[in-house]
């Protein structure tokens, strides 16, 4: 059977499974739609959270970003796991004790102000929409390869499927579907990694293979990688080449963004008890860590395999580079999507892949008769192309396609749910029309989903970065706006309505303006005020890292404004006392 047929069978089979579960568990009341009736076991919940969490950014994009940069992009690994520590200790148990359905509800009640709730809804929508744009980029990559079409066509088809899928079920559908998705995506990620680790190092566990010696010549894998890419003028893989301050701020931004993203927090509303909320965060991280500890091995090994495929002989020797006519099948397939490009600059019919930004190496390259780097690889394709580059069996390649689609779909659906519940539950029912019927609320939720996916698809055509980078921007926004308000709401009794609103608004606006300044207003290409490169950034802080500064601003503004105005009323102080203690956590209530 050829690859395309196997891919259709495996992808089709997994999809039938997800849709079957979604129909079987179709949501009937609004309570079930949002929080699955609160009967979810911590391990199940952890697994579903992991599937929800590990999106196109983690699955498709992250290892590619690590592969092409190396150590400096370890930020993604630490940032997207470290946030769970904050979530388990600073937010999840207390929000579960509070016992409402959504994040804006907590903020509205704790800061006794409809305005605070409204501001929280706006923060939530801005962060989630940015997140969905990143997801749609990944959806486009996955579908274009799967259907052998150009990336933009893949995006349109993917968007239609995400929409149909999210509208079908609510959270309950999604909770059990996501358990199935987790299983598919983790197998799809780890199986090829084990194969490749065995090929290169003879060690089955990729986590150990990364630090082992290669089978071919007994040199440690990372030493060999440094050497191979160094020979082509690239910076070392294990070296630290970027601004340390920026690296710290970026990691922090991803961490507190994790703890501030509503679609993750909402998961902890669905466990039966406060103690379960703590365990759930741990279980979620167990399932996430399986992928996150494998990802750096995938990155390093893929980079090595890619270079070995292109640079077949001695660097600089006339036949040391792969002839374009001999290019493997995966190369042709990815050329169709437009995400892999070759341009024969020196007309020798061979592919030269090297760092033409390095002045030193360029002198050498000219000596070889090279006229510039000829291969452009979109970093988002690396994970999906990886098993083909390593010549793994067809069923493994098909499985990876199924995993990539599962990752992209599950998170996009979870986010759409968070956005739609913010609009229908918090905005319409909470602020505009409290008497809306359950039916009306569900309808509003679905219209909100349709609008957000339309916007995200449009902006996903010209995304502000690779999937994981766009997603990182969303984390920055959540970090700067929602996390400080939640944390202070629990840990600092003195914060009042005025402080919280002023803090959230200053954090959000500051971060948005800094991002738009470099990435373009509302992410429209060409509308940026300054080029998005390190020499233009203030103190070398990139728009991806600015969320941390926004969060500090949020904390400071909220603190000073609160202390300059009156203390919160007694009943609010009692409320804070009560959420700090697990005893008495009942079922959640709607307003």
């Amino acid at each position, binding site marked *: 059977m050829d690859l395309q047929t196997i891919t259709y069978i495996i992808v089709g089979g997994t999809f039938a499974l997800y849709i079957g579960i979604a129909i079987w568990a179709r949501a009937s009341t609004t309570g079930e739609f949002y929080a699955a009736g609160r009967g979810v076991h911590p391990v199940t919940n952890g697994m579903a959270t992991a599937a929800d969490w590990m999106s196109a950014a983690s699955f498709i994009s992250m290892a590619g970003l690590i592969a092409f940069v190396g150590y400096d992009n370890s930020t993604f690994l630490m940032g997207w796991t470290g946030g769970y*520590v904050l979530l388990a200790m600073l937010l999840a148990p207390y929000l579960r004790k509070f016992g409402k359905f959504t994040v804006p509800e907590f903020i509205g009640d704790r800061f006794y102000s409809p305005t605070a709730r409204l501001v929280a809804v706006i923060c939530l929508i801005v962060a989630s929409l940015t997140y969905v744009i990143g997801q749609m980029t990944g959806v486009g990559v996955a579908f274009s390869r799967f259907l052998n079409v150009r990336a933009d066509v893949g995006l349109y088809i993917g968007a239609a499927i995400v929409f149909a899928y999210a509208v079908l079920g609510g959270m309950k559908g999604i909770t059990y579907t996501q358990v199935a998705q987790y299983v598919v995506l983790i197998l799809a990620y780890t199986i090829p990694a084990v194969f490749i680790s065995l090929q290169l190092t003879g060690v089955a566990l990729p986590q150990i293979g990364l630090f082992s010696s290669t089978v071919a010549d007994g040199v440690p894998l990372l*030493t060999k990688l440094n050497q191979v890419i160094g020979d082509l003028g690239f910076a070392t893989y294990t070296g630290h080449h970027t601004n340390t301050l920026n690296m710290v701020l970026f990691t922090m931004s991803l961490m507190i963004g994790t703890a501030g993203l509503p679609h993750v927090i909402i998961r902890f509303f669905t466990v039966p008890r406060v103690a379960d909320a703590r365990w759930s965060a741990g279980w979620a991280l167990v399932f996430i860590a399986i992928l996150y500890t494998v990802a750096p091995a995938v990155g390093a090994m893929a980079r090595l395999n890619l270079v070995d495929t292109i640079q077949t002989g001695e660097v600089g020797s006339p036949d040391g580079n792969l002839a374009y006519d001999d290019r493997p099948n995966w190369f042709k397939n990815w050329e169709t999507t437009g995400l892999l490009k070759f341009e024969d600059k020196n007309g020798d019919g061979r592919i030269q892949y090297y760092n033409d930004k390095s002045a030193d190496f360029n002198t050498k390259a000219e000596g070889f008769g090279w006229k510039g780097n000829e291969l452009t690889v979109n970093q988002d394709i690396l994970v999906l192309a990886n098993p083909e580059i390593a010549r793994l069996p067809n069923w493994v390649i098909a499985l990876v396609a199924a995993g990539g689609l599962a990752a992209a779909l599950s998170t996009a659906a979870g986010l759409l749910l968070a956005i739609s519940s913010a609009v229908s539950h918090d905005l319409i029912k909470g602020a505009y029309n409290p008497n809306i019927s359950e039916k009306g609320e569900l309808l509003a939720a679905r219209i909100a989903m349709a609008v957000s996916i339309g916007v995200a698809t449009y902006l996903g055509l010209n995304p502000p970065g690779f999937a994981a980078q766009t997603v990182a921007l969303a984390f920055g926004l959540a970090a700067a706006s929602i996390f400080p308000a939640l944390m202070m709401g629990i840990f600092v009794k003195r914060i009042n309505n005025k402080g919280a609103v002023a803090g959230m608004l200053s954090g959000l606006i500051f971060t948005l303006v800094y991002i738009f300044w470099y990435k373009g207003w509302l992410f429209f290409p060409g509308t940026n005020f300054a080029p998005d490169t390190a020499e233009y950034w203030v103190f070398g802080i990139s728009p991806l890292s600015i969320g941390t500064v926004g969060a500090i601003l949020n904390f400071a503004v909220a603190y000073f404004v609160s202390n300059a105005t009156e203390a919160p009323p007694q009943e609010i102080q009692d409320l804070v006392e009560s959420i700090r203690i697990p005893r008495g956590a009942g079922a959640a209530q709607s307003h």
Partner: protein
Amino acid sequence: MDNDKEAGIAYWKANLSLVKWSLVIWALVSFGFGIVLRPLLSGIKIGGTDLGFWFAQQGSIYVFLILIFFYAWRMNTIDKKYGVDEE
């Protein structure tokens, strides 16, 4: 009632101190060993690179896991000790 309140305050103090120490370790392994203190650890070699690289790409994640489970277990004991656990 007053007893409850005092127990509540002591409970909260115990929680805060546990959180504080956990977060010190959290920051030390990631921002410390993984990034800022990496040059200090560069003498310790591991598989073609140094310990700081390992902490940045592997070690910090394992420590995060241990921290969360330790916290969840410890908090459950503290809940019971101060009589504020869920019945």
